[in-house]
């Protein structure tokens, strides 16, 4: 009889099993965590040259602090190995031959004030851009989210936001005012960008999100608008989304979409696929690209993930390319 009741005795007594996983900090406590990618890339252009390299595209160091009952703060440092593709490395430049190819930037640094809005927070500082899938993409594939890959938007920016949940868990919302230049650049004009997103879950597993972003670009203050609509579906071990994306930069209109799906085959193994189509300027010729990605994720050990991806890039005016990537991600 007793053997049928599998009680995790020690863990129950100490109560530590889930406490660490839920990361519920008490006032005055802080937590240090982060992750690192180590990647191998082999790229072969159709009828052209091939390149391959090892790289460390990202190291994230994160601190989370609970300053008061409803006041939290978070800081994330992003270290990156900048060239990570031989094509971007200009060997002819004498200065490039000796530079340390690393940079460190602050990705997030914000304060959350949770005492003013029920189920919501006022967020002050360098924070996510609440748009499309760029703020929720957790890299089930090695490639960035479509808007990040196509540089439609920066994934983080400096400003003030309000984020929160719709009662009973039927959705969430975010509204923020940013510099509009992204986290790697200083403000270059007097205009501020405004970004808003709302997600609703009409039925469990089906999420709809609409996002809009408007601002001025560069010192000329050219109009810059972005729109995204996302439909997500999740059930059991399956999840997927479809994102439609539109960009307007002055008179230039771009658009495209991204379709993604993944499935957990076992507790440790999952497969994923994505198709992107993007046209940076619909009125101009030769700006359309297509991207096909397929891959799998395997948990090598606790907090160690192996990712293997094949990616096909079809470009209208440049050579098409086949890219293979193998990456380990270890987090702590």
């Amino acid at each position, binding site marked *: *009889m007793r053997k049928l009741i599998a009680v995790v005795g020690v863990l129950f007594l*100490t109560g530590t*099993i889930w406490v660490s996983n839920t990361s519920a900090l008490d006032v005055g406590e802080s937590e240090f965590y982060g992750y690192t990618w180590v990647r191998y890339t082999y790229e072969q252009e159709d009828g052209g040259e091939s390149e391959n390299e090892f790289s460390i595209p990202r190291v994230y160091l994160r601190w989370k602090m609970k300053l008061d009952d409803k006041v939290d703060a978070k800081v994330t440092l992003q270290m990156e190995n900048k060239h990570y593709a031989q094509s971007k490395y200009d060997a002819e430049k004498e200065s490039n031959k000796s530079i340390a190819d690393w940079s460190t930037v602050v990705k997030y640094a914000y304060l959350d004030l949770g005492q003013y809005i029920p*189920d919501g927070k006022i967020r002050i500082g360098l924070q996510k851009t609440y748009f499309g899938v760029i703020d929720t993409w957790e890299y089930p594939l090695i490639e960035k989210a479509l808007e990040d890959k196509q540089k439609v938007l920066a994934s983080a920016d400096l400003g003030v936001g309000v984020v929160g949940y719709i009662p009973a868990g039927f959705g969430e919302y975010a509204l923020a005012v940013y510099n509009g230049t992204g986290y790697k650049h200083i403000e270059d004009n007097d205009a501020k960008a405004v970004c808003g997103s709302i997600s609703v879950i009409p039925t469990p597993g089906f999420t709809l999100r609409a996002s809009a972003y408007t601002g001025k670009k560069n010192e000329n203050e050219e109009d810059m608008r972005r729109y995204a609509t996302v439909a997500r579906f999740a059930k059991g071990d399956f999840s997927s989304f479809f994102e439609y994306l539109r960009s307007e930069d002055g008179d230039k209109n771009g658009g495209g979409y991204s379709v993604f799906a993944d499935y957990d085959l076992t507790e440790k193994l999952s497969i994923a696929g994505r198709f992107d189509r993007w046209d940076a300027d619909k009125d101009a010729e030769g700006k359309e690209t297509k991207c096909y990605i397929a891959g799998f994720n395997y948990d090598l050990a606790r907090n160690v993930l192996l990712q293997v991806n094949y990616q096909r890039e079809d470009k209208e005016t440049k050579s098409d390319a086949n890219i293979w990537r193998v990456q380990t991600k270890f987090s702590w």
Partner: protein
Amino acid sequence: MKKIIAGLTGVMLLIGSALPIMAGGSKLVLTGSTTVFPIAQKTAEVYCDNHPEVEISVRGGGSGGGVAALIDGTCDIANASRPMKTKELFKARGKGIDPVAHVIAMDGIAVIVHPENSMDKLSMVQLKDIYTGKISNWKRVGGKRGVIVVVSRDSASGTFECFNKMALKKEKVRPDALLQASNQTVAMTVSKTPGAIGYVGIGYLSPQVKALKVNGVNPSKRTVSNGTYPIARPLYMYTDGKPKGLTGRFISFIMSAKGQKLVEEVGFVSVK
């Protein structure tokens, strides 16, 4: 473009709905609240006695952990001593989980001190002042001179959430409070520390600690049941949707007269 969007969305929905949903089988995993743990353990034992083909795994770890496990699909039933938060409901719904709450018992949160402490009662105001740090000596509330050692639960605990809401009116606990991860460790710490004060579910009362009256009312099944004890709350089991198969049969068993009798046996208050 509209056709493509509609087509792709349709395909996604079709693929998703055709995939196998977690099967019931003869195994059941319950995870979560340490307060609900004795109820889950006792009812699981009796259920397995009557159904030898069934395996039931009962784990503790706190309400937050149980809810997280339900969302991740690593348990069938999440035990919780508080209702799910909006953030948790959002995460669950986004992952295709439809959390359904089952109130399986009522509980009182008993305020406990060392057995040799001369105190036998506190008002709600005094309790709040002690936990928020306004009062730090037993003499201030009618006891013998001595520093009050405040023992509380970590913030992942549903018992903490309820105590914080009902007794402290959401004010913060004094920063030097000793934080414990379970009802048992709170009781153990208080039983070994003469100046300590703590709080546990009434199912965890024992001769090793002394329960205080709150606003003149003893924490007991009767006072929780009749609503006179001021720090009382429902206890929950959460399932994904209306429970079916083994999960449904187990929940029905707990809600039955026999199950509710077991709830009473382990020191909690029946809901029927």
